[in-house]
């Protein structure tokens, strides 16, 4: 029976890790056991033979074949996909998520466009009124500030009249309750204070007539709300006279002064 410890020492010798003391021990075993001695010789010979095998050179075509078989662009693409600009491309490469991403992108673009449009709209509201050549954009403008207010309390008409200004624009805002048909005549020198436009806000009972230096509003019974816009481009002081007439009778008159000071 061969000693297992001695066999292990033989393998340690083959592995080249045997220590001098182990070597001595092995030698003693080998001297005492002829079977072990034979096993030792055979294993050493086998080991020497197998280690004598010289490596074979692969053919040059191996490299060619391997390099041709590999898709290097694939790895390059994977690598380049890591950069920031290609991340959206990677996301869109997931077919199931394409619709969701497209929808999200659409929402983002829409929100952006809406923001731009609303911003522009808001900017337009603050445009210089002198650039306005039509009758839009003045009503309710926050830019008009009150210069003068005139309360009216008559049996035939009751309410308040505001004179407002925004840059070179003057507005006369009539908020009246008229008991019977009344005629409101506004006189101004056209060259100095031309009427830009008339804007009835409640035109059920209103008839408006425009003349060179005057404007006439015929109002029926009930509430009347209307605004007259004038242009006042000069720095000169000008006047605007309001006459309230019923059946040819002057019931009320007031002259509004417009000058550069109340600009």
């Amino acid at each position: 029976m061969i000693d297992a410890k001695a066999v292990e020492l033989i393998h340690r010798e083959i592995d080249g890790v045997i220590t001098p003391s182990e070597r001595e021990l092995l030698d003693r075993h080998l001297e005492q056991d002829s079977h072990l001695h034979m096993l030792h010789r055979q294993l050493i010979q086998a080991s020497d033979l197998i280690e004598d095998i010289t490596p074979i050179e692969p053919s040059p075509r191996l490299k060619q074949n391997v390099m041709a078989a590999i898709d290097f662009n694939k790895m390059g693409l994977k690598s380049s996909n890591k950069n920031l600009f290609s991340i959206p491309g990677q996301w869109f490469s997931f077919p199931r998520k394409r619709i969701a991403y497209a929808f999200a992108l659409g929402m983002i673009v829409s929100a952006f466009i809406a923001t731009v449009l609303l911003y522009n709209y808001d900017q337009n509201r603050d445009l210089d009124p002198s650039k306005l050549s039509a009758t839009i954009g003045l009503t309710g403008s926050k830019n008009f500030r009150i210069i003068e207010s005139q309360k009216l309390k008559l049996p035939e008409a009751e309410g308040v009249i505001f004179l407002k200004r925004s840059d070179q624009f003057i507005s006369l805002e009539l908020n009246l309750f008229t008991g019977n048909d009344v005629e409101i005549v506004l006189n101004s020198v056209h060259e100095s204070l031309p009427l830009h436009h008339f804007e009835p806000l409640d035109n059920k009972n209103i008839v408006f007539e425009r003349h060179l230096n005057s404007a006439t509003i015929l109002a029926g019974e009930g509430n009347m709300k209307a605004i007259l816009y004038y242009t006042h481009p000069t720095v000169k002081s000008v006047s605007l006279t309001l006459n309230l007439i019923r059946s040819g009778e002057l019931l009320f008159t007031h002259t509004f002064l417009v000058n550069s000071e109340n600009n």
Partner: protein
Amino acid sequence: MIEYDDNELVKRCLSGNESAFETLFDRYQKTIYNVVYHMVHNLDEAEEITQRVFVKVYNSLGRFNPKFKFFSWMYKIAVNESLNDLKQKKQFDLITEDFVSQDKRPDEIYEKTEAKEKIEYALMRIHKDYRALIILKHINGCSYDEIAEILDIPEKKVKSRLFTARNLLKETLADMGMIEND
């Protein structure tokens, strides 16, 4: 010219550097080819399997864990590919046609073959799992822990299996008259 280590070359491969992989190939093609050749003992098959090994290595580079040795990882792929190939072809420790001719006695063949081929023949006669151990230890000079990593078995098992493998090889070589017989 700067010589990069394996891990650095792997990194470069992963960033799309083709020449880095070429360097790795040049560094290991001979070793891998020889491992595979000694496993299958057929030049054409060895070339085909080696090609598969390198393609697999390249495609799996992203999964390589740098805490392990690159060559161990590559050997593992090479050994597994060889074993799978042998399994598929049912070459369970059979002598290939190259070695055996039906009308000649084995001893007659051996006389005509060189010593090297006889040893390779002996190697082919032992079980493929033991053959892999002999190849890794004696032809490629791997350590026990490296073999354990390559074959994915504990180091103790590597040691005991290698003892068995050596005994099997010794017996085969003795039967063939390559070494002393009892």
